[in-house]
């Protein structure tokens, strides 16, 4: 991964001019590199990471990890069924796994009921799905490299030589 992407992955709001200062590259070169990565889909989009642990209320979503066992379809393998599953807006992530099950599907819903409804009425009845095991997430500590709590105060002395 190039340095521009490394900087943007840490802080998507860093402007090309700032990246230029940080790296010693020309701002124009950075702009065109970013544009190319956006066009090629290397940069998919810019999002804000929100610590939902801190804004929990009755409207916050619940999340579940669902292990899905599948009978693969001839010729198309797992991709066909994975696509049928990940198209549902309830699905926030979907991975093909090695081990005792095939797909790991992360589902988000308003409540435990909406998630279990989704599993029982949409996911489980699919022809190729042989079985599901649903795990609800109780508390998130760290997600995608970010620890979900307020940054700790700098503990160093204010000045030292």
């Amino acid at each position, binding site marked *: 991964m190039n340095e521009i992407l490394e900087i943007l992955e840490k802080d998507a709001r860093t402007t090309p001019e700032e990246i230029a200062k940080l790296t010693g590259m020309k701002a124009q070169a950075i702009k065109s590199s970013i544009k190319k990565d956006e066009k090629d889909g290397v940069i998919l989009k810019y999002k804000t990471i929100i610590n939902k642990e801190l804004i929990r209320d009755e409207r916050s979503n619940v999340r579940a990890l669902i292990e899905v066992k599948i009978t693969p379809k001839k010729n198309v393998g797992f991709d066909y069924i994975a696509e049928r599953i990940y198209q549902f807006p309830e699905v926030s992530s979907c991975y093909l796994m090695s081990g005792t099950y095939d797909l790991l599907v992360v589902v988000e819903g308003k409540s435990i009921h909406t998630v279990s409804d989704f599993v029982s009425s949409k996911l489980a009845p699919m022809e190729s799905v042989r079985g599901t095991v649903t795990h609800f997430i109780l508390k998130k500590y760290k997600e995608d490299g970010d620890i979900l709590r307020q940054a700790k105060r*700098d503990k160093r002395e204010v000045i030292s*030589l």
Partner: protein
Amino acid sequence: MKTSKLVEQIPPSGIRVFFDLVLGMKDVISLGIGEPDFVTPWNVREAAIFSLEEGHTSYTSNKGLFELRQDISRHLDRKYSLDYDPQDEILITVGVSEAFDLALRAIMNKGDKILVPEPYYVSYGPLITLAGGTPVFIRTDSDKAFKITAKDILKHCDKKTKGIVLNYPNNPTGASYTKKELKAISRAVIKRDLIMISDEIYGDLTYDFEHTPFATLPQMKERTIYLNGFSKSYAMTGWRIGYVCAPEKFVSLMTKIHQYTMLCAPIMSQLAAREALKNGEASTQEMKREYRRRRELVVSGLNELGLTCHKPEGAFYAFPSIKSSGLSSMDFAKGLLKEERVALVPGTAFGPSGEGCVRISYASNLSNIKEALVRIQRFLRKR
């Protein structure tokens, strides 16, 4: 009751007043901190926790755990092809500060002189005095990129000159030396038969060229006391682990003092240091990349504000000139603190040749640095 005349005559730090001012103030953005803003990598912290669970709470041998000395020996061999015997040529100390003190006391007799390039790290002068010697300062300035040359050494030597201290990359200026520049210096060191105390604690934070340990230069290993440690490379300041590598005649004398004053460095810190050497390289490199980016931002930012700043080759300090503000170092630092709540260290803390400059530490995250630059700009506009 009378107390030590020697200690009494050491002047109190000239910037104590400024420090007290800083400590009494709230919501300060500090660019005045001489230690990494990263916490020690988790694997290292975890190794220390595990060592406690295992009940490693005893003394170690005076020189430090043999395994750690072995690890250091291998590390230096791998990294610099530098060959030190872990049995007789390596000593683990409580930070480089202790190592520096030991080195001075091991080599000096009353009245000996030690050359110290200025601006210098605050403890050098007083420790030389305490060891019964006299520091001889070699002034450097921004025109010379804060570096000394062989000529400077020859000019400042007399028959009482015992050795020289070189700290590169340098605190406070960030200046470092290329291999070529060091070679030139080494010729003067031979010519005057000096002992080199080489403080290379920031060696891993060298950005523009490969760091060259002084002891790797021809004929230098036999007269170099190489000081290094874990504080800066692995963000381990609070662990207090440094080390000395030097010929046996130096190490055995230093060990004598160390065993009576310190006994040994803390065992849990030594075990943590082993983990740092084993699995810490990736963290060091990641921190270095981050410091380097901040350096670019700080140096270009300061120069844009008219605070001329030579590009530091290493460490995490910039040492810009503040002469364009028309203020002295101390007034600049005080004014900036009072009006804009940005803390930095006046250059005079590091000797009189630091007048006209301030030390800015970029061991602080990018948003702090950006905000500090905005505030400095606002401060300068009012002048």
